[in-house]
């Protein structure tokens, strides 16, 4: 153990003396710190802004005057997605998904105004997120710090001296490994602190702990990769070239090839195109605004016989409201069918890309990180589903008011003149049916259980590196 | 009759605040073998590098065939064949290919039979000519480089510790080769710390210590320079 320690301290002393490694580590820490701070501020601003917009949007809805209830169905409502606590570190897909959504009757809109669309367009490769720093840049820093950790000793002949003096190769490698991992942990520190902060802001302990733990494993994997590259090379030049090439492949190439492959293997037709099929199906359902549409003949007959009357005007409720409620339900079923199919499609695309985690620890780390932070595709879909639930609920509640609190005769005569139009209104207190929208990411348990596979990918990488180093250690002499 | 070929005059080289060469001066005439003898850190390699143009003199002058190293290094390189101390060539090429490549670098054209003749002359075994250099021993690499120097047929030869690491019989062969070259009119400038080797081949020896020439030994007629005498002076300086 003391040998491992002294190898480790010797490596650190070398870094201090040569200054290069110290500079690299300091730059790494500074970048991580800066990204954590700037990102935290931005996310907090966005969070406050969207919470406020949400409040205003709800208030405006409540403040609407007495109206025909169906007017409120078309007036609609806005919902905003508030960021998850851990998105200060891992913004995930947040920048690429819309943050606001307009909810109205008879249709599902897309989320609008993604941050990427409103940005300068400079950050398509890099971003200031701590996640990018840790997943992509810290491995590079580790390489710059540690590529020569074994080759240097080999070139100087000190490795030979140590081994002939009876020092175990295992202990030397362990010492080098811990010195590298230690520098990685320094660069991880800002993230760990920020995670604690997220914990204070309502993230569960299990989540923050596994989030940090995931990154620790990732840093260990990269420290091992660097150590391995240095162990198998006879000269520093070679280990440097091998490691940089590995970094380019694992951190830059594989993720992009993953997304390109996923998009090519599973092309998605897009919402616009499926909308044609949706509209076709909807036409068969009939237009809910037109209560005399033949599509509602059966509904009408059933109601007439149920209440034993001959005319819809004699029904105890507003038949137009009944039709609207009925058609909204049918329509929503169709819309949801297509929306679910589309989300499934997106998810299976993402699944293909995520399989590349077996080929690159960076991809598995990113998937794990987004899954735990609640900033992945599933979370975006959750936003879409919750927004849809809210939409359906308030539209049906308004239709219910239409059905029961607005007289049929008053309703059908509303366009005759201004007075009849005024009469065909319901009290503004009905607008209180809108429930408040408070978006939160998936439950901790859901996120943890769904991230198991990616944790496994990461652990597999750790195991692979351990085996590779073990093999390489046999060939050290 | 004596035509100066390699000339150093009041040569000074400084790296930062360290004086590496201090007022070095010597002349090597045509057909002569001159050895600069010195211990580790005496400044031998720096002197050689100054002539090769990879180290710039701080003051003073160095010239080959009347051309200054500072202004005419391309000319000098075309007249000089250089044999480095430890010969490193391209491991991914064969011995033959290495020679061909370096000859083409120097823009010297030689036929395959010329190259084979040179390889035979340095006694490199024919079955190794087409093997990758990565598989060569140090001696074989040395021989390849000597063959290359011969093929350049340059009038001036720069040798850096030419016999270090060679076995005794190879050293003898090498010394005979150098003598033959000088008799054929080549000028040889070598740096070495091998007193015995220097005395075997050199017409004159300059003893270099801490960047200064502290002694010059010369052949007396056809008699070789006295090893004992040089050794005593060398040992005294390096005591």
């Amino acid at each position, binding site marked *: 153990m003391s040998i491992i320690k002294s190898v480790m301290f010797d490596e650190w002393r070398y870094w201090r003396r040569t200054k290069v490694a110290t500079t690299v580590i300091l730059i790494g820490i500074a970048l991580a710190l800066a990204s954590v701070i700037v990102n935290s501020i931005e996310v907090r601003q966005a969070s406050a802004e969207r919470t406020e917009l949400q409040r205003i949007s709800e208030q405006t809805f409540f403040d609407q*005057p007495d109206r025909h209830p169906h007017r409120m169905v078309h007036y609609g409502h806005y919902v905003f997605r508030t960021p998850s606590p851990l998105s200060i570190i891992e913004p995930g897909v947040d920048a690429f998904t819309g943050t606001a959504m307009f909810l109205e009757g008879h249709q599902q809109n897309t989320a609008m105004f993604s941050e990427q669309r409103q940005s*300068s367009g*400079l950050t398509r490769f890099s971003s200031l997120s701590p996640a990018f720093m840790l997943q992509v840049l810290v491995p590079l820093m580790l390489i710059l710090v540690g590529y020569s950790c074994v080759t240097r000793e080999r070139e100087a002949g000190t490795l030979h001296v140590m081994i002939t003096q009876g020092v175990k190769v295992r202990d030397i490698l362990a010492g080098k490994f811990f010195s590298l991992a230690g520098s990685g942990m320094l660069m991880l520190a800002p993230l760990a602190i920020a995670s604690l902060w997220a914990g204070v802001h309502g993230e569960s302990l299990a989540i923050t702990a596994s989030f940090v733990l995931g990154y620790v494993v990732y840093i260990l994997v990269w420290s091992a990769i660097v150590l391995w590259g240095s162990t198998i090379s006879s000269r520093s030049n070679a280990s440097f070239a091998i490691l940089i090439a590995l970094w380019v492949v694992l951190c830059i190439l594989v993720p992009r090839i993953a997304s390109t492959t996923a998009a090519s293997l599973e092309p998605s037709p897009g919402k*616009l*195109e499926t909308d044609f099929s949706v509209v076709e199906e909807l036409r068969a359902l009939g237009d809910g605004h037109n209560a005399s549409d033949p599509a509602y003949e059966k509904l009408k007959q059933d109601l007439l016989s149920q209440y034993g009357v001959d005319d819809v005007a004699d029904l105890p409720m507003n038949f137009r409201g009944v039709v609207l409620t009925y058609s909204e339900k049918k329509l929503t079923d169709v819309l949801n069918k297509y929306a679910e199919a589309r989300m499934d499609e997106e998810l299976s695309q993402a699944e293909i890309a995520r399989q590349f985690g077996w080929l690159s620890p960076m991809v598995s780390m990113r998937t794990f990180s987004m899954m735990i932070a609640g900033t992945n595709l599933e979370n975006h879909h959750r936003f879409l589903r919750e927004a849809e639930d809210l939409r359906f609920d308030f539209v049906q509640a308004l239709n219910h008011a239409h059905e029961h609190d607005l007289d049929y005769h008053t309703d059908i005569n509303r366009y*005759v003149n201004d007075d009849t139009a005024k009469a065909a209104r319901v009290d503004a207190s009905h607008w209180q049916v809108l429930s408040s929208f408070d978006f939160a990411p998936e439950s901790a348990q859901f996120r943890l259980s769904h991230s198991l596979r990616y944790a496994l990918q990461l652990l597999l990488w750790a195991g692979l590196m351990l085996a590779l180093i073990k093999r390489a250690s046999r060939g050290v002499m | 009759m004596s035509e100066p070929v390699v000339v150093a005059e009041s040569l000074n080289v400084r790296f930062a605040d360290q004086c590496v060469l201090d007022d070095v001066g010597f002349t090597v005439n045509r057909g002569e073998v001159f050895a600069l003898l010195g211990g580790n850190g005496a400044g031998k390699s720096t002197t050689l590098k100054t002539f090769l143009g990879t180290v710039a003199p701080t003051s003073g002058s160095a010239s080959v065939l009347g051309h200054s190293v500072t202004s005419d290094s391309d000319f000098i390189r075309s007249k000089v064949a250089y044999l480095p101390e430890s010969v490193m060539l391209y491991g991914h090429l064969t011995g033959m290919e290495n020679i061909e490549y370096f000859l*083409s670098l120097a823009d010297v054209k030689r036929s395959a039979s010329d190259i084979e003749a040179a390889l035979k002359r340095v006694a490199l075994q024919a079955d190794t000519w087409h093997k990758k250099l990565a598989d060569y021993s140090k001696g074989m690499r040395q021989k390849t480089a000597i063959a290359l120097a011969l093929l350049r047929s340059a009038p001036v030869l720069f040798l850096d510790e030419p016999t270090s690491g060679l076995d005794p019989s190879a050293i003898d062969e090498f010394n005979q080769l150098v003598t033959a070259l000088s008799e054929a009119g080549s000028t040889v400038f070598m740096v070495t710390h091998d007193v015995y080797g220097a005395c075997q081949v050199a017409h004159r020896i300059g003893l270099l210590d801490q960047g200064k020439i502290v002694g010059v030994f010369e052949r007396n007629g056809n008699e070789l320079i006295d090893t004992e005498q040089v050794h005593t002076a060398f040992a005294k300086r390096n005591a």
Partner: protein
Amino acid sequence: MLFADFYREMRFLSKQRYIVLFLSAVFALSAFAVWSGLHETKLQQATIERLLEKDSVDRENVLAGQGDYGSAAYYSFHVTYSEPSSLAFAAMGQRDTFPWKHRIRMLALEGQIYETDAENPELSLFGRFDFAFIVSVLLPIFVILLLHDLRSGEKEAGRYDLLVASAKKQHKLWLSRALVITTGLALAMLVPLLVGAAITQAPLAKTVAMVLITLAHLLFWVVVTVIAGRMMLARGQNSPRIASALLGVWLLATVIVPVVSDTLINQSITGPNGGEVVLTQREAVNGAWDQPYSVTWDEFLKTHPEWADYTDMESSFDWKWYYGFQQAGDQHAAELSKAYRDTIVRKDVAAGKASLMSPAMLTQRLMSSLASTDISASLAYEQDVRDFHASLRQFYYPLLFKGGEFELEQLADMPLYQQRLSN
């Protein structure tokens, strides 16, 4: 003379397995990028074709079943699109985040134009692997890996002095070596691009410009790498240190400068939030139902005085009034909407200036500008949609305001969307 040097070094380097493997890998990457770009372009074109086909069938069916012009306009949609240019395969730019297809109708445009049929956000996050990415981000790393030890590598292998002593002209040796590697890299990257350009029959001038941008970026990094390698070697630095310093420059140019500029631009250039535009428009359109008709007509007639004599309504609902307040709603939001777009333009201009400090970003921007996949191309498409929407209004207003019986033949001259921006 230089040709002989070039030929010698070419033969020499072609025997180095490492270099040959490296260049083959670069070729394979470039070929993959071009292939996937072509594939994506083809998919987008096919999507547009299918959309157009379905669109016209759908519209014909809808129009056939209508009884008045107002319903005809209300129920008929129109597909608008921005066709990928013939060079889009090389630089897909912003096409995955900015919309390039819409289905609009004659309602208020501000409520429709921000709808984005976006790509899978998780794939957008990973980013696409296109030719522009190889050239802007990866090319510097290729150059650094291949050329940082041009001299120092020989020094460390102990061959430097012999090489210098042997070479007839020293600088020619390094120059021709660097040139051979540069040419190899350029060919490995550009051959797939040229094949792709030939397949899509891209205009020659633009293809040449694309090649020149690639070469300029390549040359920039070759010069930086060779000079840094020479200077640092003279200061006694070894190859890995030279490469580390160069990677630092890469990091600065590719990550730090863009990220810092982006943050600064977002902080200093602010404008209305997209949400505000849509909210304003919604309030205006919905408010019209509760306000006197004159409010709508006053606003509408500001821009369409020619219909001042036609605003009488027979019942409390009339389609002309309905479309009148849709137009008025757009007019209410016009200023905000313009400010919103101006903000995007201002950010884009600022990003253009910032990219002068980052060769990688400059390359990326120039390429997507050539491929018409940049922000200005996307805004141009948006303008096309706005113009088309306006022409749709111009077509329907006479039919709505002058009254008259519904005749299907009258709709035969309905304007069709045409993309103005051509390749």
